[in-house]
C-alpha cells in the first residue's frame, strides 16, 4: 500500500477538470467502542477501499464511523445513544456510551488528524454532545469538520429517496450544498428553529402580532437565503447530471416550491416581502395545519430521467438506483471542481442491483473521478475489476483483515 496522498486526477467522461484537484483520503482509521467494534485500527493508502463480508458483520458500521468525520449525525442519522457499543441483543436505551473515531485524512500533500466521539455528560443534565479535535486541538463546532473534509454517500436506505417524503430529498440537497459550503448549515438550522418557534406560538394560541412578526421575520431572512442557495446549487449541478453517455441515466433536476418560483421572477428583497406577507396572512391556516403552508420546508428536489422525461418516482427500481448514482457522482465532481479536491465517497452495497456492465461502468467513473471510494458488498468477486487499483479488506465480526492481491 504505497500510493501517495497526492494524485494526478484524470478527467471523467463529462470533460476535464478545470483546475488541479487533490484527493481526500483516509490513510489511518481508529474506531473505539463504536457499534459492533471494540477497538479497530486500519492503516491504508489513498486508493479506493473495498470492504467485503457476510451480512451483519459491520461493513456499514465502518462507513458510518467515517461519516462522522463530517458535521451531522452520520449516514444513519443516529442519536448519540445508539452509537456506543452494545452487546449482542442488548436494547438501545437513552444512556449515551462513550465512543470514538480517529482518522488521518490526506488532502493532497497535507495530512490532518481528526478525532471525534462522545463522552457522556456526567451531570445528568442531558448535555451529551459530540466533541471534535483537529490536529489535537478541540474544535468549537462541527462546522470545522465541514471546512476540512468533503464527503458524499450512497446507502441502500436512500434507494427510496425519490419515493419517500420530500424531507429526505431536501436533506439530500442541503447536505450536498454543505459539502460545497459548510456555512449553509447556519441558515438551515436558524430557519428550522424559527419555524418551530412559530409553530409553538400558533399551537399555544398566541395572538401577539409583534411577537409573531418577529419570529416570522427570522423565518423570512433565513428561509429566503436557504431557498436561494438551493436554487443556485441546482443550477450549477444540472450540467454535471447530463453526462450524455454510459449506462447510467442522465438526470434533469430542479428545485420546486413557491419560494423558488418567486425567486425566479423577483429580486430576493421582494421575495422576502412577499414571504413575510404570506406568513402574516396565513396564521390561522397554519395553526390548523400545525406548520407554515409556505417556506423552504415545503420545497422539493424533483428529478426526471432525461432520456424518457419520466419522473424519478415513476422509474423502475434499477433506473432509480442509476439516477441516484448519477446525482452522487455529479455532486462529487462539482465538489472537486469548486473546492479543489475530490470528496470521499461512501458507497454502501452500491453494486447490489447492478449487472456486470453497469458495475464496470461505475468502477470506470470512480477511477476517472479519482476519489477514495469506500465500497461494501457481500461478494468480493463483484469488485475484481479493480485489481490492484483498490485495497481489499475482509470484514468478519468485529475485525477487518487486509487481502493481498
Amino acid at each position, binding site marked *: 500500500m504505497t500510493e501517495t496522498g497526492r494524485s494526478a486526477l484524470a478527467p471523467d467522461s463529462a470533460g476535464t477538470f478545470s483546475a488541479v484537484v487533490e484527493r481526500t483520503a483516509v490513510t489511518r482509521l481508529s474506531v473505539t467502542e463504536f457499534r459492533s467494534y471494540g477497538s479497530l485500527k486500519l492503516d491504508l493508502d489513498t486508493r479506493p477501499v473495498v470492504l467485503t463480508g457476510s451480512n451483519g458483520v459491520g461493513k456499514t458500521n465502518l462507513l458510518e464511523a467515517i461519516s462522522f468525520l463530517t458535521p451531522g449525525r452520520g449516514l444513519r442519522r443516529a442519536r448519540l445513544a445508539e452509537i456506543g457499543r452494545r452487546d449482542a441483543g442488548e436494547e438501545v436505551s437513552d444512556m449515551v456510551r462513550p465512543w470514538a473515531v480517529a482518522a488521518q485524512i490526506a488532502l493532497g500533500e497535507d495530512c490532518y488528524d481528526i478525532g471525534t466521539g462522545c463522552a457522556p455528560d456526567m*451531570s445528568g443534565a442531558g448535555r451529551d454532545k459530540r466533541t471534535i479535535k483537529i490536529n489535537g486541538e478541540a474544535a468549537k463546532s462541527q462546522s470545522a469538520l465541514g471546512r476540512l473534509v468533503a464527503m458524499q454517500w450512497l446507502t441502500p436506505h436512500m434507494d427510496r429517496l425519490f419515493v419517500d417524503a420530500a424531507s429526505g430529498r431536501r436533506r439530500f440537497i442541503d447536505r450536498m450544498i454543505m459539502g460545497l459550503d459548510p456555512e449553509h448549515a447556519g441558515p438551515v438550522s436558524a430557519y428550522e428553529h424559527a419555524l418551530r418557534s412559530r409553530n*409553538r406560538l400558533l399551537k399555544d394560541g398566541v395572538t401577539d402580532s409583534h411577537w409573531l412578526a418577529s419570529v416570522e421575520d427570522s423565518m423570512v431572512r433565513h428561509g429566503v437565503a436557504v431557498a436561494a442557495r438551493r436554487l443556485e446549487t441546482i443550477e450549477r449541478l444540472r450540467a454535471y447530471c447530463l453526462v450524455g453517455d454510459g449506462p447510467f441515466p442522465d438526470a434533469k433536476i430542479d428545485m420546486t416550491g413557491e419560494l423558488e418560483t418567486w425567486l425566479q421572477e423577483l429580486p430576493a428583497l421582494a421575495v422576502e416581502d412577499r414571504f413575510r406577507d404570506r406568513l402574516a396572512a396565513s396564521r390561522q391556516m397554519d395553526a390548523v395545519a400545525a406548520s407554515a403552508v409556505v417556506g423552504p420546508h415545503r420545497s422539493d428536489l424533483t428529478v426526471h430521467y432525461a432520456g424518457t422525461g419520466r419522473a424519478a418516482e415513476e422509474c423502475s427500481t434499477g433506473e432509480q438506483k442509476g439516477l441516484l448514482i448519477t446525482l452522487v457522482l455529479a455532486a462529487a465532481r462539482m465538489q472537486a471542481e469548486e473546492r479543489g479536491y475530490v470528496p470521499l465517497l461512501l458507497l454502501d452495497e452500491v453494486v447490489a442491483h447492478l449487472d456486470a456492465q453497469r458495475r464496470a461502468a461505475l468502477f470506470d467513473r470512480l477511477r476517472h473521478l479519482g476519489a477514495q471510494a469506500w465500497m461494501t458488498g457481500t461478494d468480493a468477486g463483484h469488485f475484481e475489476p479493480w485489481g490492484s487499483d483498490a485495497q481489499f479488506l475482509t470484514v468478519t465480526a468485529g475485525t477487518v483483515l487486509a487481502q493481498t492481491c
Partner: protein
Amino acid sequence: MATTDIDRLIQLLAKLPGLGPRSARRAVLHLIKNKEALMIPLSRALDLAAENIRTCAVCGNLDVVDPCPICADPRRDGSVICVVEEVADLWAMERTAAFRGRYHVLGGVLSPLDGVGPEDLNIDGLVARAGQDEVKEVILATAATVDGQTTAHYVSDRLGDCGVKISALAHGIPVGGELDYLDDGTLSAALKARRSI
C-alpha cells in the same frame, strides 16, 4: 461534618452553571481543607449577598442598592439606553468602559420553545422608560442568535411609537480579525454593516 452534609453541599454546588458532580466534589473538598481561609468567609459572603443584593427597579441590574449605582449616577448619559439580555452582558459592556449611557436588562430572550414570552421579560419597563422625554436613543445589544435577533426585532417593534432612535450593535469582523479566516456569514454581515470612513 456528617456525610449527608457533604453530600448536600456537593448536590447544591453541582447545580451551578459549568459544574458537574465531579467538579463539585473537588470544590467541596477544597473548601473543607481551607475551612478558615475560604469556607467560612464564603459562607458569610453568601449570607450577606443573599440578604442585601436586590434587583434595580429601573434597569434590572443587580446591586446592593436600588436604584443601582449606574442608574443613580448623574454623570451617566440618560439619553441613551443600552438593552442587554442578562446582567452578565451589562457587566461585559461595563468592562469595555466605552459606554457611558444607562442600561436596561431584559432578563432573557423570547423563546417559544423554552416557554419564554414577552410577559416573562422586562419589556414593558423598557417601553415606559423609552417614552420619557430625556431618552433619545435605544441601543439593542442582544446576541446574534436566532432568539436574540427575534427579541431585538420584537423590542424595536414595541418601541416604534416612542419616538426614539433605535440602533443595534454592529455584526462583523472582530477586532484584529483577518478576512481570510472569517466565515461567509460573518463577512456578509460586515459588508452589510459597512460605514463611511
